[in-house]
């Protein structure tokens, strides 16, 4: 019989080795500051106006920069663990709840995110920890400088995950995180959960997370980031920001978002409105249950054009302003279908035109279609896509099928 090294001995040896040299990564769970949201604003030195007792805090927020001037203001939101609901439930925390804030926003000003982050560590007893980061809110001013400049930190940092949701705020991004939401405990969580209703409301831009945004950036595609606005206790997704070459190139309103969703085949659900057939006043509304869009690049005589075919299925949801008690029958539904298709086509055309002429942002990522499906053509035009895109012929054709009419005829 072979005499084996008792593994217990081996284990003890290893454990000794370890405990003697130290525990490098150990940090108990309650000693970390879980950053749930980050807001990035742009900063220009003239903003600092020391006033009264706030002065000290303002001073804290300055990061001394070795090279260059501070241009960003980063705000992180961490939950105050003592006031987390579970503790109150277990009885040890008492009923401290009330109106006390449940989160702590720390702001810091500087020109590099890592130095801002490290400066923040000097202001908190917790170690900032980013694995639970949910949202990144960017101010439109920052975006105008370019996303490239700032996203590097978030991609390189080991704790960051690519599933962080990106949002754009007009004006101050910090304000969004300062919202005290009604349902959730933390503004960041609230914001993160918002796009969950994208299957009910097509005007919510389909979610863009950090990873996808980076992919678009690297591939040179234009994309859209949802825009958020805040009141005291509410946040709303209103339209989106168009990003081209990593810079913000304009706003898209909610109706545009709808079309962009359709074109990107990310339409999950929503309503389509149409005129009541044979009437000037009434309107009919369809609830879309499924939507499929096919975008095909067509080259005819060396000219590129696109055929967009939208297929929607839905329910007849509501009619407003119907005077006579006309029944909903097959004939009627057929007319309605045509009516809806017409609305979709006009809506699409309008937005496409806006994107082509006004903004010149290929937010539909048509360039990708060309690149993947007509590679030979793409090789020729890839450098002058900006000139080609506004003049592209994009034909939209919509097919609508109404499958159900509800419980009334």
């Amino acid at each position, binding site marked *: 019989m072979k005499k084996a090294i008792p593994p217990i001995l081996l284990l003890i040896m290893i454990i000794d080795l370890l405990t003697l040299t130290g525990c490098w990564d150990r*940090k*108990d769970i*309650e000693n*970390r500051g*879980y950053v749930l949201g980050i807001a990035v604003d742009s900063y220009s030195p003239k903003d600092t106006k020391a006033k009264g007792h706030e002065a000290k805090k303002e001073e804290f927020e300055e990061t001394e920069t070795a090279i260059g001037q501070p241009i960003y203001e980063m705000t992180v939101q961490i*939950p105050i663990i003592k006031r987390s609901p579970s*503790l109150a439930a277990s009885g040890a925390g008492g009923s401290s709840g009330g109106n006390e804030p449940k989160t702590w926003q720390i702001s810091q000003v500087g020109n590099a995110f890592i130095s801002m982050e490290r400066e923040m560590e000097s202001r908190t007893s917790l170690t900032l920890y980013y*694995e639970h980061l949910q949202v990144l809110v960017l101010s439109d001013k920052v975006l105008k400088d370019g996303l490239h400049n700032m996203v590097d930190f978030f991609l390189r940092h080991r704790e960051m995950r690519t599933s962080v949701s990106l949002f754009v705020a007009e004006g101050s991004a910090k304000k969004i995180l300062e919202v005290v939401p009604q349902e959730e405990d933390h503004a960041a*969580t609230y914001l993160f959960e918002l796009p969950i209703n994208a299957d009910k409301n097509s005007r919510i831009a389909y979610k863009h997370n950090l990873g996808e945004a980076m992919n678009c950036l690297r591939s040179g595609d234009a994309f859209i980031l949802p825009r958020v606005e805040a009141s005291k206790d509410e946040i709303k997704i209103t339209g989106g920001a168009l990003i081209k070459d990593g810079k913000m190139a304009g706003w898209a309103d909610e109706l545009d978002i709808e079309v962009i969703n359709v074109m990107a085949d990310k339409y999950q659900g929503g309503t389509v409105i149409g005129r009541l057939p044979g009437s000037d006043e009434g309107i009919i509304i369809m609830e879309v249950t499924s939507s499929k869009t096919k975008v095909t690049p067509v080259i005819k005589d060396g000219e590129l054009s696109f055929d967009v075919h939208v297929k929607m299925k839905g329910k007849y949801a509501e009619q407003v302003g119907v005077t006579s008690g006309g029944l909903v029958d097959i004939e009627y539904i057929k007319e309605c279908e045509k009516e809806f298709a017409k609305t979709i086509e006009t809506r699409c055309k309008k937005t496409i035109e806006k994107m082509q002429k006004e903004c010149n942002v290929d937010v539909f990522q048509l360039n990708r279609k060309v690149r993947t499906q007509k590679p030979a053509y793409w090789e020729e035009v890839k450098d002058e896509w900006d000139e080609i895109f506004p003049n592209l012929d994009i034909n939209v054709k919509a097919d609508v099928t109404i499958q159900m009419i509800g419980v009334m005829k």
Partner: protein
Amino acid sequence: MLNILRKWLSKGGRGEKQNTEGEENKDNQQSQKNQTQNNQTIYGQKYQNIKLTRNLQDNITNIKNAMNNNFDIKAKEFRLRGQEIYAGVIYIENIANEDTVLQHIVNPLMIESSLIIDRDDPILFKTIIESMVTAEYVKVVESIDEIILALMSGDTFLCIQGYEKGFIISTRKYVGRQVGEPILEPSVQGSQEGFTETIRDNVGLIRRRLRDPNLVFSVHQLGRRTKLEVVVIYIKDIADQNIVNDVIKRINALDIEGVQSAAQLGLHITDSPNSIFPLFQLTERPDRTVRGLMEGRVAILIEGGARALLVPVTLPLMVQSVDDYCENWIIASILRLSRYVGLFVSAFLPAIYIAVTSHHPGMLPNVLVLTIAGSRAGMPFPAIMEAILMEVTIAMLQEASIRLPRVVGQTVSIVGGLVIGQAAVQAGIVGPIMVIITALTAIGSFTIPDYSLSLATRAIRIPFMILASTLGIFGVSMGMLLLLIYIADLKSFGVRYIRPLSPYRSSDLRQILVSSKKSSMIERPIFLNPQDKQKQSEAKKGDGYGK
């Protein structure tokens, strides 16, 4: 029937043993050869100079002296009726059945003997035992060693004036517990009988369940002083002969004072005595033993031990329970799976908890991480200290509840529940999540059918916790790898402890890991190397399941 059994026992015993002492056999074949022409003494040189003489009185005195004239040694001299032949019996009062001695030996010889016996007739000696004594005759003995051993076992020595030899007559009295319920291994659907301390009853329990003439009981005497019977049981045409020989070889090679229980014996014959994992299976259930035998394993019973020792054993076999075979295979698989989960939880859960919370909270979802952090806010100890504290408390509680008399046992659970569950949390020494983890760990360890195995999980828990707190999940994984290598290297009587998880063989896996699914009822687990690989014929399968 019991008589037949006993014959089995005695014959088998006399047939193949008797060289346990004196020399240490390194070579099995050698030892078997020796057994046939064995003239070795049982008690070594001790009684070498005492010889039986023709004088009855001398013999009795010598034997009594050899046994230090203890008060319970009874000797009776008498005269055969109508003859001038004197005879004597010696027995030990409390372990020999006195009624048998008087009724079946003394009575017939003294009163009922009517044959004329010629003093010089050599036939006489045989006639006494063949025609006169009605008690069960065992053998003729000449050596004092054998006589003493027989007396010590409860047999009676009958000695005749004028002969340098005598008879051993079986008069053993078995006093023991009634067959009771198994305590450590209760079963819902299985039988409610458990082994007792009497080897004769235990053999009967097995015999009753397995009426196979190929069932072999090979008896060995073990212990320099205790001289207890050890019975090695196997089914001749199933069990791998190599394993059987190995077991017998190891038992015969033992040179120890004596063992009192099957577990002790197991520790003496195990492959690696340093192993924290049990390399033999202890069971108090006859039905489990029988199942083991039919799988081709070897069972070992020892006089005075209420457990059977089943070897070889592998880790997956340890996780089986008798109830597995009483349920539909789907249900049984779920049950078994839950036991595997229990095994995993009981060994690793605290370590994983520590690693995740103190190294990688990123693994936890947002809400959970805030809940745990919230519950730990303001705790004085780091998670590792908390865990060790709880672990020690639980270990003490378990130990206390075993040691305490059953009447007081209630108190322990109340005190323990109060101390751990409530006071510690309220005082803010231990977080509520830690209490949950500890409780889960304890529950997990209770699902393991084998007590020794659940003790093994307890032994590895704290090292893993330390690894977790120094290196996080990486440390835990390295520890698991180390453990895996260790287990993979262990062998139980030549069978790797990890089989049949490796090497893969689908029928074994299905049978051991999942459960007795239809098709796997046909074949025996091949890793035990059975001679007869089929359990039932293919045709039977069709009949049995109505196709």
